[in-house]
């Protein structure tokens, strides 16, 4: 089951913090011997989406819709949670940005998943 990373953009451009989050999600995917899928919402160029591969994504989903042009917590959380369900992801990673902090709790409730805010490391505990 892959790891899903929400790659936040500002006016169609990924910020440094997004690439950092992708690298962190890649490390989690490696720990779990699984793939990393990115979900981007908004008008991001194909070149920029493809560049996520350099940071470790195996697949990129892009949702572009006029209704999603501006950040709306409820709508974005629905899109990301739907992507997680479709891809079968059991770990969803978001940047600890203002938007990420608003989205993570809603996604957690939708997926009935625990939410760990402000993570700095990720370890798998053996049962």
């Amino acid at each position: 089951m892959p790891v899903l990373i929400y790659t936040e953009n500002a006016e169609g451009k990924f910020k440094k913090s997004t690439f950092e989050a992708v690298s962190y999600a890649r490390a989690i995917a490696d720990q779990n011997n699984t793939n990393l899928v990115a979900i981007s919402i908004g008008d991001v160029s194909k070149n920029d989406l493809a560049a996520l591969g350099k940071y470790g994504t195996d697949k990129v989903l892009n949702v572009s819709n006029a209704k999603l042009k501006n950040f709306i917590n409820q709508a974005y959380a629905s899109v990301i949670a739907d992507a997680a369900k479709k891809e079968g992801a059991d770990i969803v990673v978001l940047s600890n940005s203002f938007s990420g902090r608003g989205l993570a709790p809603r996604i957690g409730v939708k997926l009935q998943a625990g939410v760990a805010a402000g993570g700095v490391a990720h370890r798998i505990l053996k049962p």
Partner: protein
Amino acid sequence: MKILVCISNVPDTTTKITFTDNNTQFNNNGVQFILNPYDEIALARAIELTDGGNGTVTVINVGEASTEPTIRKALAIGATDAVRVNAKAHDAWYVAAQVAAYVKANPFDLILTGRESIDYNGSKVAGMLGELLDLPSVSIIKKLDIEGGNVTVEREIEGGKEVLTIPLPIVAGTAEGVAEPKIPNMRGIMSARTKPLTVIEPVEVNTLSEIISYETPAPRGQVKLVAADDTAKLVDLLHDEARVI
């Protein structure tokens, strides 16, 4: 207008944090507990919005009886009445689920939380409540005004702010700037003793996460100064000691 303010009972900011039971529990021996400062901001704004008989402010806390002094402080500040869900606040999900159950039976026009509690800093309750109640939520706001049936908030974003106008009801997490915290006056303190504080039993909630252990941050090391032209030494230190290259 009916406003609900979610309040939490948190360790005072000067508390020396220690853990017990093999670092699995927060050690609350001798700890002074206070009203979460961000919740005080939410409460102050709610009181301003309902000033002059324009509505009521209910505060809700998920906690055991030991939280009642904090609840009474919220009443002294100016809340109309209070509800305590008689349960330990296990985590943000548990708290959100309890509050949502209460709100489903008792709707409000506006639900406020602080942006985060100063103990766990999760910023989760506002978003979780919004999702559970199928309401818009804005997690970290710096300004909130109401006109007609709409609320206008300023949301903090990286390098700026975003202004949103949303029809009520919504859930919002307040940060600094929304209002100045109010100091209870003597009249408030006296009336807090007799204002209604209703205790309700919790609903069943599933567990989504578990805290395995706590640890305190490692103490900071001493600063090492490297001469500006000694790049070789800098590289060695970064590689061998800091292990960042």
